[in-house]
């Protein structure tokens, strides 16, 4: 049976993890490679690096980080942030990333999803969508959630699927950082609409929230950042909780 994936996301700025686990035995807590190794050892199903560097120059360090991670970590690695063109995707995949996550660049240029999925395969193209509630609908935001695009979320999701995205990373901006749980209405509508898998993101604050993401939201994978980094609970605890609730997770 296919298992629900638990994915920790690491924010990386200028080659350093800005939010990270405070493990005492970690030699360098700011080193993304060290963090990825630990997450893999404790049972993460995939790892996500989100590059939040401000400049293109600084982003180049991500290529080296990905290459070093690929030497040590043998679970899928997704890299997002600052991907503008097909050459950026090629460089990341070549250095050892398994998937790239594309957000603003897909809004500016729809062909990027189409061209990259045709060239490299849909399996490595994750379309990231930042959604914000407006009255009774949801609107897509770009540029790290700062810009209202005016595009409706559900039509954009269908478009991304049709263009060839292999999965969707859906973040609720209203819930992100609140610890009030996923936006289940947004999530459910999206997973009902799409045939490709949806990774739920934004708002998880307790173990019950993970469960609801699957049972009420229909998510194929659950992504979280701060609850893991600040060690509020571990990946093992999340998996044990889900397993007890009869939601299949990988425990081997």
């Amino acid at each position: 049976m296919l298992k629900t994936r638990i994915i920790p996301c690491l924010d990386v700025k200028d080659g350093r993890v800005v939010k990270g686990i405070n493990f005492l035995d970690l030699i360098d807590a700011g080193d993304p490679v060290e963090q990825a190794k630990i997450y893999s050892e404790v049972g993460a199903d995939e790892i996500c690096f989100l590059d939040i560097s401000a400049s293109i120059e600084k982003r180049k360090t991500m290529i080296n980080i990905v290459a070093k991670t690929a030497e040590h970590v043998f679970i899928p690695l997704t890299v997002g942030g600052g991907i503008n063109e097909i050459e950026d995707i090629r460089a990341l995949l070549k250095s050892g990333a398994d998937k790239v996550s594309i957000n603003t660049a897909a809004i500016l240029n729809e062909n990027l999803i189409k061209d990259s999925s045709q060239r490299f395969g849909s399996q490595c193209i994750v379309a990231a969508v930042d959604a914000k509630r407006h009255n009774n609908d949801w609107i897509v935001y770009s540029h790290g959630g700062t810009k209202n695009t005016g595009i409706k979320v559900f039509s954009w999701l269908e478009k991304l699927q049709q263009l060839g995205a292999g999965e969707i990373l859906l973040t609720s901006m209203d819930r992100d950082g609140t610890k009030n749980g996923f936006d289940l209405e947004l999530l459910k509508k999206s997973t009902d609409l799409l045939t490709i898998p949806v990774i739920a993101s934004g708002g998880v604050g307790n173990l019950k929230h993970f469960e609801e993401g699957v049972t009420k939201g229909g998510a194929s994978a659950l992504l979280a950042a701060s609850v893991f980094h600040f060690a509020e609970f571990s990946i093992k605890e999340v998996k044990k909780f889900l397993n007890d609730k009869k939601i299949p997770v990988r425990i081997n």
Partner: protein
Amino acid sequence: MKKKVAIIDYGLGNIVSAQQSFIKDAREHNLNADVVITKDVETINNSTHIVLPGQGAFNSCIEGLKSIDGMIDSLENNVLNKKKPFLGICVGMQLLADEGRENGTHNGLGWIKGSTKKLKPNNLKLPHMGWNNVNVINKNFDMDFPIDNLDFYFVHSYYFDCFDKKNIIATTDYDLKFPSIVGKENIYGVQFHPEKSSNQGLRLINSFLKL
């Protein structure tokens, strides 16, 4: 004897992970092994083990292989005549079939009887993406599979429909029980990504390296 592993490069995305996982495994088990990514026919002729990765569509993969001068001939000579251990991964496994039905019907390598077809799961997402367990149903092979019922990382929308059941080593359930490991003499194929499947993936790679 020194193992020389040739991982075939025909212009795909991430094959660094495959190389790194073989290197790590050889190091951990004190195996003397060179692991190279190559499209050079001479290097393949000098190898002891051949790995064919695969990502994307069946037709672009087979075209990619054909576009390298002498590649198909070299593979056939090394695998079918010289019987070197061969491992196809994901689409690299599907290419073993007679044909693939993705973007039209295309000829495969035809080393194991079968056809590549689209998964059509009821109320389940496509691609079949994530960790799923592998049930070993046939242990009648030189390669050891000490991995029964463990989870491996899959990402695919097509599967290898094996015509001869004796070529199926393991199956995985995604609405349909599809072959997740196939084999015939020295030829093996896995639908999942061992190089992305944590410790159990490395264990499988180790079994292959021991051949």
